[in-house]
């Protein structure tokens, strides 16, 4: 059984539907990638999981539970973390305070997890008392991912974690994502612009066009598809 399932989601931001029939699943331990042209509704699909859009029709299932009508903080408590595409750190809070905010809904002592996040990103430990707004783009992305890991979630949603980063950071983020997936058995659903690279390392992928599923297959399967190659992968 899948950990996360979006079942025929229709909805948007109050006006016309942005999503008109999106369905996808993520199994436990899987890395699933969503690709598609700009404005296809990839970010909106992620927000649908998190209760941040109006869902008019369809259901979001997580571990057998219906999340569709839950508040965002209730969804977080179920063990899902979301790293948005933009504005994903608190700029005036220090790096450490940003990480603490990731553990906001935890009732236990989060300091062992903080130590683990610093182990994963030694750079963040060096910068722990610096305001997150003063960091470089790559470092911010580490703060955002580190913050999500503070909850020790079962599912991580990453929206274009490598957008706008220098190539060496892009590889580092991909490595990190694969690392946490392997080490923690954490399921990952991510949107990625670097479609070729992302599909190369994902277990499965979805191509979203105009708010609808267009293709779905294993990562290599999608990479081998001529039509997709012509559309996004630069021929």
């Amino acid at each position, binding site marked *: 059984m899948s950990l996360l399932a979006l079942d025929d989601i229709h909805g948007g931001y109050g006006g016309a539907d942005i999503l008109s029939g999106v369905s996808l699943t993520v199994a436990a331990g899987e890395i699933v990638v969503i690709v598609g042209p700009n404005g296809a509704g990839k970010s909106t699909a992620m927000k649908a999981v998190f209760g941040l859009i109006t869902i008019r029709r369809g259901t979001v299932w997580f571990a057998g539970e219906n999340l569709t009508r839950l508040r*965002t*903080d209730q969804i977080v408590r179920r063990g899902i973390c979301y790293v*948005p595409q933009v504005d994903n750190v608190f*700029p*005036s*809070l220090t790096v450490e*305070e940003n990480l603490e905010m*990731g553990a*906001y809904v935890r009732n236990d002592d989060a300091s062992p997890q903080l130590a683990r996040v610093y182990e994963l990103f030694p750079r963040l430990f060096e910068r722990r008392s610096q305001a997150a707004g003063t960091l470089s783009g790559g470092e911010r992305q580490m703060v955002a991912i580190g913050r999500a890991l503070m909850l020790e979630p079962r599912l991580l949603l990453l929206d274009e974690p490598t957008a706008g980063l220098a190539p060496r950071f892009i590889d580092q983020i991909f490595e990190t994502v694969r690392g946490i997936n392997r080490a923690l058995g954490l399921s990952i659903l991510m949107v990625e612009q670097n479609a070729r690279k992302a599909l190369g390392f994902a277990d499965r992928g979805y191509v979203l066009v105009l708010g609808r599923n267009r293709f779905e297959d294993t990562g290599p399967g999608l990479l081998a598809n001529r039509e997709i190659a012509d559309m996004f992968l630069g021929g």
Partner: protein
Amino acid sequence: MAIELVQLLIYGIVLGSILALGAIGVSLVFGILRFAHFAHGDLMTLGAFFAFSFYVGLALPMPVAFVFACAATALTAVVIDALVYRRLRRTSPVILLISSFGMALILRSLVQLIWGPSNQVYDPGIQFPYLIWGLRIKPDQVTIIVGALVLVTGLHLFLQRTRIGKAMRAMADNIDLARIVGIDTERVVIWTWLIAGAMAAAAGIFLAIDTRLHPIMGWRLLLPVFAAAIVGGIGRPYGAIAGGLVIGIAQEFSTLVLSPSYKTAVAFGLMVVVLIVRPTGLFGGRR
């Protein structure tokens, strides 16, 4: 002459302390709820009159009356939010602003109805100032400065050390992200009103100690309080403290060259200059 300047500086710090306490609330409310709270001056008035009832009416000691008045005003602010602002939060900030203007009128009328329209004082009689190196300092002024320092230090510890204080700063930074990490934003809103209300009451009580009680005392101070919040960078409580001092000191120094009736204009002028030179305020607030 030097003595004269130091004397004015002291008056400026007293006024600045009062403005800072008011501006902290305005800035917090703006940072969390994104609207200019026009009823803040009248919340100050209400706090001052609550203290009057506890101190003069019930003959409680002043420190006790002070704490009770801050608590009563904080609760009033939470109730006003629950009854009025909360329902309008999904509409535009302009509607919230106008409703807070209406709330200002309601509060002022209530104060007049309950406590009457005339001037009152906590303690009749004249206080004799200490004379230190030719400076005149009244015990009340010492109380105000020390009281403001204690409150500001308390606020600082709250914002830096407590879970809810950090959540408040996080929410002021980015409300969507605050929701995404699972912060219960309605709870933060309640805390914001509690603090803004208590600080407003403190400002009102200190103002009444420094001058006297009157139903429009807080309304009259609203413009300098907003100027302080804006000069400090709206949405930034630490900026509000600095902004309060800057405005308070500038207002007192302006009396060297201008008639005291221009004090409010000085606050306004300074605000406009800061907005032109540095639109985000001295401490980089929100647009």
